[in-house]
Structures are given as structure tokens and as C-alpha cells.
């Protein structure tokens, strides 16, 4: 886990939204994707691969590569790069 990446100051973001990622509390702003909020919080590793356990993060950033897949609320796999963070969301890593 490194330092969070900067949010640029040239937009006014939405209200605060809180979700958890693997149990840790993450603060996002309304409108932010799960992936952007996690990068801004210094979390670049979103999961470990099924076969070799290698760390994976955001790659294509446009919903094509499926590397950033995470599970939300224990039931649904989504692409973190195109899915907005929502208040109370429980985000966990998948091993796929």
C-alpha cells in the first residue's frame, strides 16, 4: 500500500461516500468509480490472480480487460473501473 494518488482540484466532487475494501474503510466522493477512489486512497492492488496469486490492479481503465474485477456486497462481481462507489458498499477482492 503506497501513498494515495492525487485528485486534481479542477472539479468539485460530490458529497462523501464511505465504503469498505477488504474490511478497511475508504472515503470516496460521489461520482467516483471504485477504482479511482481506491487509487486515491493508495490501494492499487485490487486482487490476486487465481493461478499464481500475482497482484493485479487497474489496467485498461475502460471496462474491457476485466483485470479490476471486485466483488460488491458479497454477491456481484463488477469492474471497479466503471462502477461508481456507493455509500455502505462492501467491496472485497476476488481471486480469479
Amino acid at each position, binding site marked *: 500500500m503506497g501513498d494515495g494518488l492525487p485528485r*486534481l482540484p479542477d472539479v468539485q466532487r460530490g458529497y462523501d461516500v464511505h465504503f469498505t475494501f477488504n474490511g478497511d474503510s475508504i472515503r470516496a466522493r460521489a461520482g467516483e468509480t471504485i477504482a479511482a477512489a481506491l487509487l486515491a486512497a493508495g490501494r492499487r492492488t485490487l486482487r490476486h490472480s487465481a493461478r499464481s496469486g500475482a497482484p493485479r490492479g487497474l489496467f485498461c481503465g*475502460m471496462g474491457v480487460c476485466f483485470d479490476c474485477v471486485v466483488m460488491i456486497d458479497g454477491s456481484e462481481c463488477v469492474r471497479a473501473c466503471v462502477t461508481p462507489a456507493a455509500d455502505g458498499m462492501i467491496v472485497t477482492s476476488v481471486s480469479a
Partner: protein
Amino acid sequence: MTSTELLVVGAGPAGLATAIESAKAGVRVLVVDDNLRPGGQIYRQLPAEFEPTLPLRRKADFRNGRALMAEADAAGVELRLGSTAWGSFEANVMEVASPAGPERIRSERTVLAAGAHDRAVPVPGWTLPGVFTVGGAQALLKNQRVLPGRRMVIAGVGPLLLVVASQLSEAGVDVVAVVEPASRWAALSILPALAHEWPLLADGIRYRTSLMRRGVRWMSRAVLTRIEGDQEVTAAIVSRADERWRPVPGTERRFEVDAVALGYGLLPSLELARVCGCAVEYDAGQRAWRPIRSVHFESTVPGTFVVGDGAGIAGAIVAAQEGRIAGLTVANQLGRLTLEETDRRRAPYLNRLLRLDRCRRAIDRAFALREGIFDAAGAATIACRCEEVSFGDLAEAVQDGADTPAMLKSFTRAGMGPCQGRMCAASTTEWLARRTGQSIEALGLPPAAPPAKPVVSLEALAAE
């Protein structure tokens, strides 16, 4: 089942332009798009909850996007976002996964405007967190206004490389090197063709001078050969490149960075067109497959059109002209415009395309990939990210007798994961072609099967 006269898949410049022209002629148009905001990769608008400051609002891509959406709105185009078109089992019926659930949309005509994605060329370390495609780094910056890294190397080739390097640098990323295997003269060779498209020329010059002003190092005839890091990116290794773009031994340079963006141009997103039965042909100039189309962009499936970058990479301006032409052609086929009127309205767009075609061919020539770029990957390098298949695994399969992309896929599972080969198929086929001495054209493509985007397999993934 929903019914409409024209179904457009994709709300980028090509799809919206199609929709606008058809709707203005009185055709009932429905546009579906996988994303939550319209505009495609280039004109995507910020999330609704974001309030941009004035300088950001004035940026050309946001402005052009807003104008296009206002035009679509005024023309009465219906837009459904967050809706993924993934296949078609019956002529004129599209299967769509929408937020409300699965949906079938029947239409008299269909226009596919699915866009493109980065061509990622594998290098050791390219699966580490902190490695992005060039388009991915740009999407994060443009749509979320979050930096992809603090210190970055940007590697690849083509116009997007220049645009994104300059945007990242302006946003405050310390871009320590832009690494391009093409020679420094490649970009200059485009200039004569751009003479009639001065806004493009002006953009190019503006981006270059911006990078020079910031002292960003532009390394021509250089290639990214390795990305290092234990858990996340810590360094990028760059070598000089020879004429064939192969790394020159003994010329390695190490840059300590926390992120890397890589992209060797774009590839058309052909999956949906192929699933719908559109025949494709190989474009050697772009080193990519594209749908076979009539002069008005109708595919080999009557009533189904393919427009924009999803039919061959040419950028947003070409995409918009193609969309306008297809939209008018649909209106004519549905009896809303006479042939005379259709010809009259199509003429300016066709003329513009003729002029743009010169630029496109000059850009294709200047940045045509050379095979050395595929030399950076070793036996241990991951070829298929989804299924974690290495080039060594592919070599074993070839030894066992796999000699076509389809066999390679079924022997190793490379290309069977959720990205469905979008990230690996082009480079594994390049590898196979060199390995077996066959041409890419002769090797062909593995058969296409629905879903064109994994709407179903995600649930299966969740069950694991």
C-alpha cells in the same frame, strides 16, 4: 421485447452522429451503451456529481461531446446507458444486458459503433498494479481527474501516445520519459498530409511544444523491455531500438517510476460485429482485422452497419463522418429520405472522408508496427492476462501441434477469459505467425461466439 426502427450500439462520436442523422430524418432511434455516461472514450462526460471548473468545462473534448449530445437530444434520440449489447441469435434482434435485466431489442436496422481499445504488447512485468494502457491512464485522468501515478514512463507508438503524455504532464505527473520505437522523423512524415486538416496539425504541435516546455524526455528509437516491481511497479527498463524495433543489447536504462502507461495504437472492437455475423478482412496497414463494408458502411449482413473506430482506426472526426453517412443511408433505406436527398446530404461527409483518408494513410504508414516490438516478451512473460498463460505455455502448445489461433486457444485457454482476447489475441497471433512462418491473414481468427462481452460469465466468476 422492445422495438425500434434503428438500434445503434455505442454512444461515442460514430454512434451519436448516426443516431442524429437518422432521427432528424424521422427515424425512431434507440442508442445503447455499456457506459454510464455517453460520449465514448473521447467525449465521455464527467460523472453527473462532478462540477467542473470553467477551464475544464472549456476543454475541447468536453465541449464537443456536450454539443453532440445536445444535438442528439434535440433530434429526439433515445439513449440507454449501462446497457451492454452482447449478441444476436436471430436476425434484427439484439440481446442486451441492461440495469433492469436482460432485454431483447428488435430493430429494422442496426448500426454498430463499438469503438476501439488499446493494443497492449506484452513485456515482462506488464501485469503489475501500476501498469496501465495509455487509454486507461487517460480515462482515469479525463473522467475521474485522478492521477494514475506520480512518476511515469509512457511507452508505445501513435498519436494517442503524444496526446496522453502531454495531458499527464500538464496534470502534474512527472513524466520521466516517453519511449517510442519509431524514428524521430516518423511524426514529421505526416505533416504534408495534415496540411488540409490544420486543427489536427495545430493540436499535434501544441502537444509537442507543451512536452518540450516541460522538459519531458522524448526517446525515439527506444523500446520498453521490462517493468520491475515485487508487488507493484517500481521501475521501467528501456533499451535503444533498432530499425526493426528490436531492443539493442547492452543499451538498457532504468527509470525508477511508480507507474507505466503502454499502448501501441488501437484495435477495433470487432467482437459484437463478428458475433452478429459480419465478415472481416485483414488490413495489413493497420495490422488488424476490420469488417468488410460497402461505401456507405453496410456490413456483409444486410441491414447491419459498422462505423467508427470499431471498423478500423481513424479517430473521432472520421468516426463522425461515417456515422452521419450511415445514419442518412438508414433513413433512405427506411423510406424517410429520397435517394436524391440522401445523396445531397451525404456529399459533404463523403468529401470530408476523402480528404481525411490521406491523413489516415500517412499516420498508418508513419506508425506501422514492426515485428521487433514483440521481442521483449520471454518464455515466462504472461501472454494472456485473464488465464495467466505464458509464452512458454504457448510454445509447448505449438510443439504439441497447435498451429492456428483457434487451436492455440483451445490448447492453452489463452483468450478464453473475461476479456475474450481483447488484451492478448492480437499479440499471441503475431507471436504464432512468427513462430510458424505463416501470415496473420492465413492464420485467421478463432470463431466468434456470444456473449461479445461477458455478461453471463461474471456471475459464474462470482460463484467461484
